């Protein structure tokens, strides 16, 4: 029974002042729960069997913004991206040293449920991969696997997700048609809607526009900007102009002599593209590589 509402949890506080403070605190707590996650890699090494794919990689990715990963082919960008939803686990013989943290929690610790992690950290792939089902079923796939079966609930979720992905207007009267009947850009937005349906906090995008035409690409970039208000977004891209257009921070990676990927430079996008600090970054950005 403190008079200023301090303390943890939901202790009852009978004073009026205390109650007001309690309400404020609960509101704060609710906000942080819906707040997005901030990601951090701490001196991470990634091995596939004996081969070291990432060496001594440390990076801090701020919440609710877009961070881009650029670098030449084979520098480990995708491997690094997949650290955060543990998709590397699917490759036999993969091993991670160091820590990968989401909101301070090491996602590689043994008591983390990978399946649950992947609901918090969604991924969009390079080639749009809608399931061979209707658009509705595609978006409802995630929620259904989580146990939601009521039709009305699913309809709400599907509509919300498709609206968030800026696709609702184009598909609202053809939800039962196969997802594969959509255009490339629409399919990719469908995949984004699919991810949004499970309400993640982080969205990982692995060269999401490389299979799309320029107009579809720009639409997806617009979508990313909108989503960044609510989600933490990490995007791997080959297209430097895209990284420059879309991200707030950019990390430049390169493979070293033993073909292990390293982070060369990380910084504010505008600075990195006008006055990079490392010569290798400058050479890559100006296209004077090799």
């Amino acid at each position: 029974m403190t008079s200023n509402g301090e303390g943890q949890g939901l202790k009852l506080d009978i004073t009026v002042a205390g109650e007001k403070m309690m309400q404020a605190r609960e509101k704060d707590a609710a906000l942080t729960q819906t707040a997005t996650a901030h990601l951090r890699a701490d001196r991470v090494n990634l091995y596939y069997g004996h081969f070291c794919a990432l060496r001594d990689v440390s990076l801090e990715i701020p919440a609710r913004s877009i961070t881009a990963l650029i670098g030449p082919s084979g520098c480990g960008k995708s491997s690094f991206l997949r650290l955060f939803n543990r998709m590397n686990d699917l490759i036999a013989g993969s091993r991670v040293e160091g820590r990968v943290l989401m909101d301070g929690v090491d996602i590689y610790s043994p008591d983390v449920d990978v399946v649950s992690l992947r609901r918090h950290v969604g991924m969009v792939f390079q080639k749009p991969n809608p399931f061979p089902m209707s658009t509705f079923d595609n978006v409802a796939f995630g929620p259904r696997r989580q146990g939601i079966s009521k039709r009305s609930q699913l309809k709400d979720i599907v509509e919300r997700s498709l609206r968030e992905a800026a696709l609702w207007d184009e598909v609202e009267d053809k939800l039962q048609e196969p997802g594969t009947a959509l255009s490339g850009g629409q399919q990719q937005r469908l995949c984004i809607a699919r991810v949004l349906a499970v309400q993640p906090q982080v969205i990982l995008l692995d060269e999401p526009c490389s299979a799309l035409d320029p107009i579809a690409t720009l639409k997806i970039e617009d979508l990313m900007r909108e989503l960044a208000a609510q989600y933490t977004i990490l995007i791997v891209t080959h297209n430097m102009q895209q990284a420059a257009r879309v991200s707030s921070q950019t990390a430049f990676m390169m493979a070293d002599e033993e073909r292990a990927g390293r982070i060369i430079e990380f910084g504010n996008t505008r600075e990195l593209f006008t006055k990079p600090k490392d010569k290798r970054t400058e050479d890559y950005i100006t296209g004077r590589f090799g």
Partner: protein
Amino acid sequence: MTRTALDRQLAEIQEDMLVLAGMVESAIDRGIQALRNRDAELAREIIADDIKINRRRYETEERCLELIATQQPMAGDLRTIAAILYIIVDLERMGDHAEGIAKIALMLADEPPLKPYIDIPRMAQIATRMLMGSLEAFKHRDAARARAICNEDDEVDALYDQVYRELVTYMLQDSKTIERATHLTWVAHNLERIADRVTNICERVVYLVEGKIEELNVSKY
């Protein structure tokens, strides 16, 4: 070595800019010469040539924009093109100032000189030296030299003060000299503006090399 097209186009644009600077330097030199020698014809030539300076500036500007559109320069290349775009503006304005000097030379051509011209040509000399130096600094990406050149602007400012005071003295002593003295003040003013513009160019060189904009010509007032 990739980006040969970009490098080649950048080199050509840089060359255009240097040519433009040469035209401006020539205009300044000839302007002072026309003033000294009361050469009306030379003055008219300089005035006519200003059109060429303007045209070259716009041509170079267009080439810069084309390069941006087609080559998407980044980082150092981007700063180079941005620097060039601004420098040619300054150069064109300097050309206008030089044209102003030539116009005054034309006006004074029929009149006897008010006094022997010493300080004004001196100002012009320093200004053109600063101009060519700044473009050398650009060519060699030499930020230190750019900074050093800015200091010479103080000399020009000092000379301007001197010229101004001297001419005011003349005007006070003899009201018949007012017209000529005023015109000469204007010449000195143009030269002082030219030197100022060179410091702008030097600021751009520093930006190009170091990536930050620094005010290099802080007024002593």
